[in-house]
Each structure stands twice: as C-alpha cells, then as structure tokens.
C-alpha cells in the first residue's frame, strides 16, 4: 500500500496585522510549521503503515523553505518527500494548487490513499482536498475522525455538525482529516538522523508537465482585492447601571421587562 500525504507549510503564529498604507500583511517573525491538521494526516499514515505495511510519501507545493516541513515529516517516519518548487507556481489559489498537486501525483505513480488536512489554518478554505479528489476522479471523505482499512476498502468516521457518519469507499480514495483523529508524534533523535538520508525530490512546473496557463497566479480564478483588519463593532450609547448588585439586578430586570425580553 502507498499513502500520499499532502502537507502545507503555514506561519507558526496567525497573529498578523495589516499595514494600513500598503495593505500588506505584517507577520510577526517568520517561523513556519506544518499545518496542524496535516500533522494529523502524517500521523494517520504512519499508524496505517505500522498496522498494514505501507510506504508513506509526502507532497508539498511551496517555496524552498518548505524542505524543513518535509524533513520534519520524514523524521516522524515518512519514507520519501516531493517538493513542487517554482516561481511560476506562486500565487496559486485552490484551483491552481489542486491542478499542480494532481499533476505531481500522476507523476509519482500508483497510490492507494491520499490524505489531506481538513483545512490549512492560514487561508482556511478546506478546498484543496475535494478539488484534488475531483481532478483525480477519486471518492472523497472529508472531516475524518477515524480510519480503518480492510482489503481494498476504507471505512471512515466523519465528524459533522450534528452527527457522526460512518462511510465506506473503495480504494484509492482521498480523505481530509480532523484533529480528533489522533495525536501527532514528535520526531525522535534517531528519526531526525534517518530523515537526512531519505529522498527529497524537488520538481519544477516543467518536471510535472504543468500547463503554464493552469498554474500560479495565472491559473487562479480568484483575486484578493483587499486585505484589512476586522473593523471594531460599536453601538450607540451604552447605559451604565451602578449601585449594589441587588440594585443593578433590579434596574436591569426593569429594562428587560420594558423591552419585552423578560
């Protein structure tokens, strides 16, 4: 069995501000981490590997520094990693990203399972997984909190707003996973040493045979036209109630009764 895990590198802190003049994001520090849900996806792949025997391949599209994220995944126990790195890929929205990842996966060869995170915490769309499944014509199972493989089928539990759903699909399939699935392991010292020797392949857009019109900003139908901080919410005048707690309570009760809320 071969499992491909798609991981994205995201800023370690989401505490960003917007420069009021340029409207660009000001990031405090530049430290990056693996998108948290993608770590759950790696962990799930490694647990399936332990149980059924599998090879686990990591795939990411991003700038050169994404190597660090891939090395961490290899140190956790993945077998090999692929980085799609090319200036032409920059500015991709979910449609262009899913196209690019699909091209790479076709080149990577056969697989049984693709795992993605339920969403990336920076852009927070959760669209790349389903769009990738569509492009590869695979059944998709989103919001997965439990995975079982039997023969050539995957049985998964999905966590929805008001229910838990148990579904079954034939392999190959694509799953997007939630944090309820597992607790990701930390790389061990030995894992980190071994990771340095594991294969990390870097591909350009040309290497994966990508059509230039379909990648990067050019291949992205959506445009970000403005970035701003949420405006504060303000009401007209507030009426302050003061006195002893009992007096305040009586005053409030009176007003709520007058407003027909009590």
């Amino acid at each position, binding site marked *: 069995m071969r499992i491909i895990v798609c991981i994205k590198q995201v800023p370690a802190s989401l505490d960003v*501000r917007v420069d009021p003049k340029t409207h660009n994001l000001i990031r405090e520090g530049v430290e990056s981490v693996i998108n948290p849900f993608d770590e759950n996806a790696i962990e799930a792949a490694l647990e399936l590997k332990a149980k059924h025997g599998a090879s686990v391949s990591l795939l990411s599209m991003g700038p050169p520094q994404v190597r660090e994220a891939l090395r961490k995944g290899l140190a956790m126990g993945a077998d090999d990693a692929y980085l799609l790195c090319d200036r032409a890929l920059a500015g991709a929205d979910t449609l262009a990203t899913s196209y690019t990842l699909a091209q790479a996966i076709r080149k990577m060869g056969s697989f049984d399972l693709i795992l993605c995170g339920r969403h990336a915490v920076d852009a927070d769309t959760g669209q790349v997984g389903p769009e990738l499944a569509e492009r590869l014509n695979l059944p998709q199972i989103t919001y997965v909190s439990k995975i079982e493989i039997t023969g050539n089928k995957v049985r998964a539990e999905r966590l929805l707003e008001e229910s838990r759903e148990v579904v079954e699909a034939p392999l190959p399939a694509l799953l997007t996973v939630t944090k309820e699935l597992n607790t990701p392991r930390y790389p061990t010292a030995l894992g980190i040493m071994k990771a340095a020797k594991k294969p990390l392949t870097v591909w350009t857009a040309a290497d994966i045979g990508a059509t230039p019109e379909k990648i990067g900003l050019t291949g992205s139908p959506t445009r970000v036209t403005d*970035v*701003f901080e949420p405006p504060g919410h303000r009401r007209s005048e507030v009426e302050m109630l003061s006195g002893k707690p009992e007096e305040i309570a009586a005053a409030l009760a009176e007003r709520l009764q007058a407003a027909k809320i009590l």
Partner: protein
Amino acid sequence: MAEAEILVFAEQRDGQLERVALELVGKARALAGGSRPVVAALLGSGVEGLAGDLFAAGADEVLLADHPTLKVYRTQPYADVLFPVLKERQPDIVLFGATSLGRDLAPRLAARLGTGLTADCLDLALDPQGLLVQTKPSYGGNVLVHITIPRHRPQMTTVRPRVFPLPPLDRARQGKLVRLSVNLVEDQIPLKVLEVVPRPQPTVRLEDAAVIVAGGRGMGSKENFKLLEELAQVLGGVVGATRPPVDEGWIGPDRQIGQSGKTVAPRLYIACGLSGVVQHTVGMQKADVVVAINKDPNAPIFDLATYGIVGDVKEIVPALTARFKELKAKGA
C-alpha cells in the same frame, strides 16, 4: 452577463431545509435587485414539499432533483446532478452554505467547472461593474480579505450560516417548479453511508438561542461557569464562551462564539468577564440587546453594550439570577 441568474444550493437534511438555505435565497434576492432570476436547487428524496418555503423566501424557480439515491448526502451523486445544471444554465453566481455539506460539495463542483470558489464568506456585495465582492476571514479571523472572481463563471462561494438574516416568508409568492431528471444508479455510487449517529447536542443550539449568557477568561474557573448555567437556566438561554475558557477546558468547543467559533444572533446577550476583542464580537454583534459585566470600565465590550455593569461577575451574576428567579416566581 448582468441578466444571468443567481443560483442557491438549497441544503436540506432529513427532509428539513437548513436555515442557511433561506438566508441565502434572501441574500440572492437582494443581490438580484429584481432584475435577474433567483433559482434554488433542491436535492433529496421526498423533498418536493420544501419548494414552497424557497418560493416564499424569494426564489423564482426551484430545480428539484428527487431520487432515493439523494436521500442522505454524498458528494458524487450530488455533484453529478448539479454539474450539468450549472454547465447548461451558466448562472452568474452560485451560493452554498458553509456547512460541512456545502464545503464538501462546492469545491468538487468548482474543480469540475474550472472556476473560482471562496470559502466561508462573511459578506457579499456587488461592485459597480456587477462583480461579486466576497469577504472572507483569513489567519483565523485576524484579517479579512475581499475576493473577486473576475473572469471565470460562475462565481462560487460558501457563506457562513447566520451572517444574513432570514428573509420574511411571503406565502403568496409563487414560482416555477422544474423537475430535473436523475439518472443515478445506486450500484454505481462508490461511497456507502453505513451509519449516522446523532451527536449529543445542547437542548437548544447556540445558533438558535434567544438568550445567551457568555463567559470569558474573567470567569476564572470551571466552577464559576456554573453561575452562568444558573443564570442561563432562569432565562431559558444557553451558555456560550470566548476562546480562553474553551482552551482551559471550562466548557466544550461547541460553545465558542466568534471568528473561529459560532455566529449567533440572540435577542439578549449577557457578556460576563470577557473583554470584547473583535475575534469574539464578530460572532455576536447582531445580538439585539447586549448586557456587559466587566470589572474594567475601559473594556471594549462596553462600546458594544446596551447596558453596562462595572463589577465582579462573581457578585453580579448571582444577583441577576436571584432577581430573575423572583420575577419568574411572580409569573412575570
């Protein structure tokens, strides 16, 4: 292009319309401004009866796909029914609720159509050229971005439930019901739903609660959250929270209100020991009456309150509970 229709995916579960479906029909109506048609797509099994509500909310046309294979939502059959419809009708805009279902289905269709999709929008507007300007949170709500889809059609978006009000239902409104032919065969659908287990829910959902008593870090402990339960109980309300109490484990994550939590619109919102940071207030700013209790007179929550109380929650909250109980006993 300006004449092209706005299509709303009318999500239903267990034969009941999701409220967001009506919210979106109402919003589509407002965007259409009377000059272009609003169309709702309704998929399910035995759901024809729901068309009336969609007309009443403002749909001009309801496209109905009624088939046993569509009873419980699955990605592929839903996408297979909708794709040819979108391909043929070429709507200008397609709106989905940003529910687990909408966020599973919409990207599948967007990829098949090769168009743009914006996730989890908090607002929609048209620019002077008639282009849809979509407001979406990013970085966990620390920033908002405007997104447009200038050249591809349809412009697709998933919209967070509760950001638009329920439209008034005009029962006299009529519309056209169009039955879609469905050629689905169960054996050809790869995914099977084996079991659906309801998750335990609070008796009233936070989103539906008329009264919410919300606690923040200032409550200080899990113990003190019981004071809020007691107050909520006499008011027939539900307890909500900011993020710190959820992170501390004082209350479950399903009670978080705000940017990365729920959006609520109760008649009465009592904010207890919370500062009123924008990540929180974005989820409750639609409340009718806001009561704020905070020991810091400069807390930003007072800017947003109808009634403000400067004091310690541990003293004020029990006093409120006692007073409301008294009134209730008197049959007020």
